[in-house]
C-alpha cells in the first residue's frame, strides 16, 4: 500500500510537471485552438461561463488528468477497486495541488499587473485569461484541484475496468504446483477483449489521421509530412539498429541516394530524363537497397563502435560526392537539383502539401505493415538474436552474413523511399539536405522512442521533429525547452517513450496441442515432466 501511494505521488508530480510545462509554453491555447478546428467547435454561447475555447482546453486537461489517474492506479497485486481509486485519487490530488498552485500564482501575478509575456514569450494575456477561465486566482486554483481529482478518479476507474478484463498471472503461478489444475479465465475472452479494444483504438487513430490534413493549414501539413518522412527513416533504421543491433551512423546516405535517384531521373536539369514519379519510386528503393548491401559487405565483421565509424564515413562520402564540383555535371553539384517531379494521378498533378501528407501516410502504413510482419517472423527473430549475442546466434544456425546484409538492404530501402518522397515533395534536393545531423536525428528518434518498437519510432519522430515546430512560438527558448524535455524524458523513461514489448507466445493449457504421434519424442515428455515436477517441488521447500 505504501509503495502504491508513493507510486501515485510520483505519477501525480510527473503529470503536474507536464501540465505546468504545457501551460508555461502557452501550449494550452494552441491546443485549444487546434482541438476547436478539429471538432469544428470554436464559436458559440458560453456554457456555465465557459467559452468554446475554454471547453476545448479543458478537454486537453481531461485527457491528461485521466491518463494521470490511470497511471496512478496501477502497479499492485492483487487488484482491488478501492486500491485503484485511492491510487487515482492520490495522483489526482498531487497533480491538482501543484497545478492549482500554478493557476493561483499566475492569477496573482496577473492581478498585480505583471506582464508575464516579458518572461514567458508565449504566455500572452489572452492565453493567461484562457488558462484562468476568467476566475479569481483562488477560485481557479481550487477549480483545477477539483478538476484533476475528478479526472484522476475517472482514470482510475477506467484503468481498473480495463485490467479486470485481462487476467494476470500472479508471481506464485511461476513456481506453483504445476500438477494442480489451473483455473483461469478462458483465453479467448482476454484475447477478444484486448484485440477488440486495440482494433477500435487503431480505427479511431486512423480516422483522425486521415481527417487531419484537411483541417490543417499548409504549414502544419508540411510539418506532418516531414514527421512522416522521419517515421519512414526511423522505421528503416529501427531494423538496422533496433532489431539487428548494427549501429549505423551513415544512414543519411541511403536517404540521399533515394532523393538523388528521384531528382536526377525526373528533373529537366542536369540530365533531362524527366521520368515519371511512379517509375522512380521502385528504382529509388532498389538502388538504396543495393547500396545498403554494398556498404554491408565490407563492414560485415565489424561491431559496435567500429561499425559506427565506418558507416559514419560512408554517409559523409555520399554527401561530399554529391556536392563535389567534379561530379557537378552529373549530380548538380553544390547547387543541387531543382524541379524534381511530383506525383501525378490520372493525369492530374498531385503535389499539394495535403496530397503529399496522404502519400507519406500511406507509405508509412505500408512500411509499418512490412516491419511488423518481418519483426514477428523467422527473419526478425534471427535479427534480434544477432543483436543479443552474435556468436550464439550463429551457433544456433543463423547465417550472420545474409541476415546482416538483409537488414542493411531493407533498412536502406525504407530510407530510399523516404528520400524519393522528400525530394519530390520539396521539388528540390541538394547536398545540404543530407548532413550528418539527419543521421543523428534519426538515431536519436529511434532511441528516444524505444529501440525496436514501431509505435516508439512514430512517437519519437513526433517528439523530435514535430515538437520543435509546435514549440516554434517559444522563439529563443525553443531549443532550451526541447533539450530539457529530452533530458527529463530519458530520466523518466530510459528505455524509450514506448519501449518494445515481446509478443506473448506461450500456449495456455486450454489451447493444448495434441502430441504429434509422428515424433517419437512425445513419449518422453511425461518422463521429463515427472523429473521436473519433483524438481519444482524441491525448490518450493
Amino acid at each position, binding site marked *: 500500500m505504501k509503495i502504491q501511494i508513493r507510486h501515485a505521488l510520483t505519477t501525480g508530480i510527473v503529470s503536474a510537471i507536464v501540465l505546468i510545462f504545457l501551460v508555461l509554453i502557452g501550449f494550452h491555447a494552441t491546443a485549444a485552438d487546434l482541438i476547436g478546428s478539429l471538432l469544428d467547435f470554436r464559436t458559440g454561447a458560453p456554457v456555465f461561463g465557459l467559452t468554446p475555447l475554454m471547453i476545448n482546453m479543458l478537454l486537453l486537461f481531461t485527457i491528461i488528468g485521466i491518463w494521470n489517474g490511470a497511471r496512478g492506479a496501477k502497479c499492485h497485486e492483487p487488484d482491488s477497486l478501492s486500491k485503484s481509486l485511492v491510487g487515482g485519487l492520490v495522483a489526482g490530488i498531487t497533480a491538482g495541488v501543484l497545478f492549482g498552485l500554478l493557476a493561483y500564482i499566475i492569477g496573482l501575478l496577473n492581478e498585480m499587473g505583471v506582464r508575464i509575456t516579458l518572461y514567458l514569450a508565449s504566455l500572452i494575456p489572452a492565453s493567461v485569461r484562457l488558462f484562468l477561465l476568467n476566475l479569481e486566482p483562488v477560485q481557479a486554483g481550487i477549480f483545477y484541484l477539483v478538476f484533476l481529482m475528478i479526472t484522476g478518479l475517472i482514470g482510475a476507474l477506467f484503468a481498473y475496468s480495463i485490467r479486470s478484463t485481462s487476467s494476470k*498471472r500472479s508471481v506464485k*503461478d*511461476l513456481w506453483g504446483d*504445476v500438477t494442480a489444475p489451473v483455473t483461469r479465465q478462458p483465453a479467448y475472452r482476454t484475447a477478444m477483449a484486448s484485440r477488440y479494444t486495440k482494433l477500435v483504438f487503431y480505427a479511431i487513430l486512423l480516422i483522425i489521421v486521415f481527417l487531419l490534413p484537411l483541417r490543417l493549414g499548409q504549414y502544419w501539413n508540411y510539418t506532418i509530412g516531414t514527421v512522416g518522412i522521419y517515421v519512414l527513416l526511423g522505421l528503416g533504421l529501427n531494423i538496422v539498429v533496433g532489431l539487428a543491433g548494427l549501429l549505423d551512423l551513415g544512414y543519411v546516405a541511403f536517404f540521399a541516394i533515394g532523393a538523388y535517384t528521384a531528382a536526377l531521373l525526373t528533373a529537366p536539369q542536369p540530365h533531362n530524363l524527366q521520368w515519371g514519379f511512379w517509375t522512380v519510386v521502385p528504382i529509388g528503393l532498389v538502388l538504396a537497397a543495393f547500396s545498403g548491401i554494398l556498404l554491408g559487405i565490407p563492414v560485415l565483421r565489424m561491431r559496435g563502435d567500429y561499425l559506427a565509424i565506418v558507416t559514419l564515413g560512408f554517409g559523409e562520402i555520399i554527401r561530399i560526392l554529391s556536392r563535389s564540383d567534379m561530379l557537378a555535371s552529373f549530380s548538380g553539384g553544390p547547387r543541387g537539383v531543382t524541379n524534381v517531379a511530383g506525383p501525378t494521378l490520372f493525369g492530374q498533378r498531385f503535389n499539394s502539401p495535403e496530397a503529399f501528407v496522404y502519400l507519406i501516410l500511406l507509405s508509412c502504413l505500408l512500411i509499418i505493415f*512490412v516491419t511488423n*510482419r*518481418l519483426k514477428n*517472423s*523467422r*527473419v*526478425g*527473430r*534471427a535479427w*534480434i*538474436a544477432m543483436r*543479443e*549475442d552474435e*556468436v*550464439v*546466434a*550463429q*551457433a*544456433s*544456425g*543463423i*547465417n*550472420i552474413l545474409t541476415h546482416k546484409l*538483409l537488414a542493411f538492404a*531493407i533498412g536502406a530501402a525504407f530510407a530510399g523511399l523516404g528520400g524519393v518522397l522528400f525530394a519530390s515533395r520539396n521539388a528540390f534536393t541538394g547536398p545540404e539536405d543530407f548532413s550528418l545531423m539527419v543521421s543523428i536525428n534519426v538515431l536519436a528518434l529511434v532511441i528516444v522512442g524505444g529501440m525496436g518498437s514501431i509505435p516508439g519510432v512514430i512517437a519519437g519522430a513526433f517528439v523530435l521533429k514535430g515538437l520543435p515546430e509546435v514549440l516554434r512560438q517559444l522563439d529563443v527558448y525553443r531549443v532550451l525547452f526541447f533539450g530539457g524535455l529530452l533530458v527529463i524524458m530519458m530520466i523518466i523513461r530510459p528505455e524509450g517513450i514506448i519501449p518494445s514489448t*515481446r*509478443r*506473448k*507466445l*506461450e*500456449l495456455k493449457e486450454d489451447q493444448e*496441442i495434441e*502430441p*504429434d504421434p509422428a515424433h*517419437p*519424442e*512425445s*513419449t*518422453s*515428455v511425461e*518422463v*521429463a*515432466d515427472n*523429473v*521436473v*515436477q*519433483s*524438481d*519444482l517441488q*524441491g*525448490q518450493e521447500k
Partner: protein
Amino acid sequence: MTPTLETRNLTKIFGGLVAVNRVNLVVPENTIASVIGPNGAGKTTFFNCITGFYTPEHGDILFYGKPVVGFSPDRVAYLGISRTYQNIRLFANMTTIENILVGQHPRLHSTWVDAIIRTPRMKNEEQAALAEANRLLRFVGLAGMGDHLARNLPYGAQRRLEVARALANKPKLLLLDEPTAGMNPHETREMMIFIRNLRDELGITILLIEHDMRVVMGISEQVTVLDYGEKIAEGTPEEIQGNARVIEAYLGRGAASGLGARAQVS
C-alpha cells in the same frame, strides 16, 4: 557403424600456445561421453573447434563420417550439432519461447518474402514451430514461463532453457559445456537424470565437459581426460578413476604417487 563424432589429430594453436594437441576422440552413436581435465586443459577450445567457432590448424573432425572442419558455426548447427555454454548465453531480451524459436532456425525455411506476404507455407510452418516450442518448453519443465524474458528467469531455469534451445535444432549430437555448474546437489541430480533421458528417449549422442566427478562418473559411458591440450587417458569411468596420470594431472606428482601406491596396496 560410423561413430557420431570422430576427431583425428585435432590441433589448435593460439600464438605459441598449443591449446589442443593432436587429440583423437571417437564418440559412438547413442553414448554419453565426457571430456574432463584441469582448468585450462583445452576442453572448451576443443568444443569450439567442433562447433566451428575456431578453425583447427591440423586434423580432421568427422560427423557421421563427413568432414566438418572449416565449416562456419551456422553450417555445423544445420548439420545437427547443438551446444550449450559454460557461462549461460541466452538471448536475454527475448522471451523463453522466442529463445527456443531461434533454436529452431535451421529447421525452418521461410524467407523474408514469405514473412511479408505471409504465405500459407510460412503460416503453417510458424504454427508448427510454435507448437514445437511449447512442447519443448514443457519438456524442460518451464511451463508457465514461456512469456518471461530470458534474463528474468532463475538460474536453474536459464540452464534448462539453454538446453531447450539446443534441442530445438533437433540435434544428433549435443555438446554440453559444464551443464551442472553452479547447481546444488539436488539440481545436479535432476540434471543427470535429464541428460540420461535425452539419450535414452530422444536418442541424442551427448558429449559433455564437466568438473563434478559425481556427474562424470555417474552418467558417462566413456571418459576422455585432457591435460595441456593433450589426451592423457580414455576409458570407462572405472578405468579413469584408477589412472595414475589422471590423478597426477589433477593433484600433482606427489599425490599421484601416494594415491597410486595406495591403490596398488588395496
